[in-house]
């Protein structure tokens, strides 16, 4: 991002300004004619960069959509393990920091140094707050081995004994439902639609690890998780032995960490950028004539907020 900012050309470039009256605008780089041109260029550059960010995350959203469409039961099951309240608070924190960022731009535009610095510091604080909450969320899940890939299937060991193993005995009691061989030969390869009569009779949402969990597995889980043991934490930790856990649940956590992690990286980058312009604004670099860096970092920060606005419902709310 630093590089986008077209301001401040180092070393000797100013010597070659030819006939331009750049002295009026000390911040104007040598290859621009007017401040407006420089501002518009910076802004367009930032927007183009944001477009790449949209596609960057877009591919992840595509992956999310496909996985969800293929295994809805995984998502409705696993999203119960996320903490909606923490997520909600984090959303609010980001929105507020977006507000302070927008305010910062406003004050920069009006050459109000004091409020500008305060707003930037608040924004920075918001970013910190977001990360702290995220940290607690992550550790909570790590404790319960709600991780990606193989680690997800590691039973949580407490006092040398895997937690929840006894429950496994209950598992096989689940009533098996009808299942065919799931013959794929019943597929019309051109249209890919199953031919009606031979289509698999397994209700997909009911595919527990036994392959045949009863249809209302989800409710059973809620009962299991909250009512039966009355201990959400234990329910989280024994997920490996949970008969109602659908096949491939680890994928949910895989992409949860991918997407929120990538977003988190963006937050960290944002913190560096905000810190940088805070220093510069303390130095008094910005005023109504020149505030492009504040504006651009603002745009970046808003897109980080904007992406979270989608991540939040997709992972925490939809079930």
């Amino acid at each position, binding site marked *: 991002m630093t590089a*986008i900012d077209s301001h401040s*050309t180092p070393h000797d470039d100013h010597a070659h300004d030819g006939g331009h009256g750049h002295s009026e605008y000390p911040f104007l780089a040598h290859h621009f004619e007017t401040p407006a041109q420089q501002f518009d260029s910076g802004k367009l550059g930032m927007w183009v960069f944001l477009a790449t960010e949209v*596609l960057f995350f877009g591919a992840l959203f595509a992956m999310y959509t496909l996985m969800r469409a293929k295994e809805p039961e995984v998502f409705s099951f696993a999203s119960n393990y996320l903490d909606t309240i923490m997520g909600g608070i984090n959303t609010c924190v980001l929105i507020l920091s977006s507000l302070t960022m927008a305010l910062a731009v406003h004050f920069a535009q009006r050459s109000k140094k004091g409020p500008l610095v305060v707003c930037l510091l608040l924004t920075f604080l918001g970013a910190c707050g977001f990360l702290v909450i995220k940290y607690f969320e992550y550790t909570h899940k790590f404790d319960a081995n709600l991780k990606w890939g193989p680690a997800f299937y590691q039973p949580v060991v407490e006092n040398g004994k895997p937690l929840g193993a006894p429950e496994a005995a209950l598992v096989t009691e689940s009533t098996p439902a009808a299942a065919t061989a799931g013959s794929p030969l019943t597929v019309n390869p051109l249209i890919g639609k199953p031919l009606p009569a031979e289509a698999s009779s397994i209700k997909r949402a009911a595919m527990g690890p036994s392959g045949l969990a009863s249809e209302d597995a989800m409710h059973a889980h809620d009962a299991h998780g909250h009512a039966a043991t009355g201990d959400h934490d234990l329910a989280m930790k024994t997920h490996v032995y949970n008969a109602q856990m659908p096949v491939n649940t680890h*994928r949910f956590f895989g992409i949860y960490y991918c997407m929120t992690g990538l977003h988190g990286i963006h937050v960290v980058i944002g913190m560096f950028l905000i810190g940088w312009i805070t220093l510069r604004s303390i130095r008094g670099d910005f005023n109504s004539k020149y505030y492009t860096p504040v504006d651009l970092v603002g745009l970046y920060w808003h897109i980080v907020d904007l992406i979270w606005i989608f991540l939040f419902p997709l992972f925490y709310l939809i079930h």
Partner: protein
Amino acid sequence: MTTLDATRPLDTRPSADNYLTHSRGVLSWILTLDHKRIGVMYLVSVLASFLLGGVFALLVRTKLLFPGEVSWMSAEAYNHFFTLHGAVMVFLVIIPSIPAALGNFVLPIMLGAKDVAFPRLNLASYWLWLLGATCVVLSLLMGSFDTGWTFYTPYSTTTRFGGVVPVVTGAFILGFSSIFTGMNFIVTVHKLRPPGMTWFRMPLFLWALYSTALIQILATPVLAITLSLLAVERIFHIGIFDPAWGGDPVLFQHFFWFYSHPAVYIMIVPGMGIISEIISVHAHRHIFGYRFIAFSSIAIAFFSFLVWGHHMYTSGQSGLMNVVFSAITFSVAIPSAIKVFNWLATLYKGSISLTTPMLYALAFLFLFTIGGLTGLYLGTLNTDIHLHDTYFVVAHFHYVMMGSALIAMIGGMHHWWPKMTGRMYSEFWGRIGCTLVFIGFNLTFFTQFMLGSQGMPRRYYSYDQLPGMAEAFKTYHHISTGGSYIMALGFVITAIYLIHSLYRGKPAPANPWGGRSLEWQCPSPPPHDNFKVTPRVGDCYDFSVVRWDEASNGYIVDRSLDPELNPNAPKRKGHH
């Protein structure tokens, strides 16, 4: 904003203070913000990578002289070599070659700007390229990789060779290098056009670079994320692409080709832009159908996003999507056809000088016609079922990538060589080099069409096990390998005379070919900030104002003859 008297020729006297001599020392190069120096650094790096990729190619070809096992190259080594060849050529050579090397150098000058919009971003792009290239080298040290340049899962997530993650990181970084170039070009074209340089005044090369930049911006992030996911899948098994963890390998192909199909147009569209320039300049003839060519670049950029599935006809992709993708694939062929015909029409009634760049441009026309037309076989559903993953595809994409995009790049390099270096190369050797490359190329790759349509699969180390076919295949492979040696000879000659010209070449005039666009109206090599004064632009394809100037041993643009710049200029026939 003073503009010089529009009718006087711009000052083209070579000056001692040009961008090459402006400052000295290694640091003044690697920390430069000058788009011209960055372009030159890119050019050198890309050519070095080309040499590397070419060496890998020759190893591959040499192995294929022998149908069976050879003691000096195992099957696994072969797999590494063609993978490295493909990856180096695609990610290190052809994608940055035209935009980042030649485009960087020429774009601001053609536009009449002092620099690109974000010089530091431009430098960052080059540094990222270096970093990416380092990662590729690093991956060689860490066990290399044998996945094919397409990195198809689950092979790439399970192969025992550990170079996959570093090379994928490298490609990720190279992706951002390419994105930064694209951002720069979009903003430069939008915001840094001087007065008078309207959109439809821009040289077509700029239209091409602009369209390319759009693709770079929109497609590359998807590759970046896909490759990161591949690395993450390989290390952490999150279950996206690897079926052993519940992933879907076909999804990887969708994501990969969502980038990599548009990427093939990142390679060819700027090449087409160069060809538009070379043909009009060396035929000294107004480009025919300017608007059609300009819009067809944009059309290609747009359509290129809709056809990625044509690489997946046999992958198990659903029949419905196959049909959709096939239908849209053909729509991409139309803008290309428009361009080919317009170039032909530009030759008509021109004043054609058969210089080395022009020879390359004609070779491009010849080879792109073959390469593009064979794309039709591949776009067609039932014939592609037969031809997919055979040497037919290999031949197709070498005709378009090597025979078209790379030839255009080499042609453009010759075209702007005098401008970049201030030296002329030997025309005689230039023509010899071009001819050898042309002949060698056709020998190498035309035979591969026959190999492919006869059923020879690609990425095959040995073909002695194919009873009834091995004999015929052997003959074709021998011709092919022979051709590649001829081609290599051509390139070596080219390298020699170009390097020679740096030291012994005649000083180049400002305008050796009779070009009309702005870069021919500033000295060779250009001064540090291109133009002392922002020039007024005329019609950059109006060659009637160009005339030979004995004194400078080059052409000059007599701006006083241009009615747009000088109201008193004599009216000419056939001009409106």
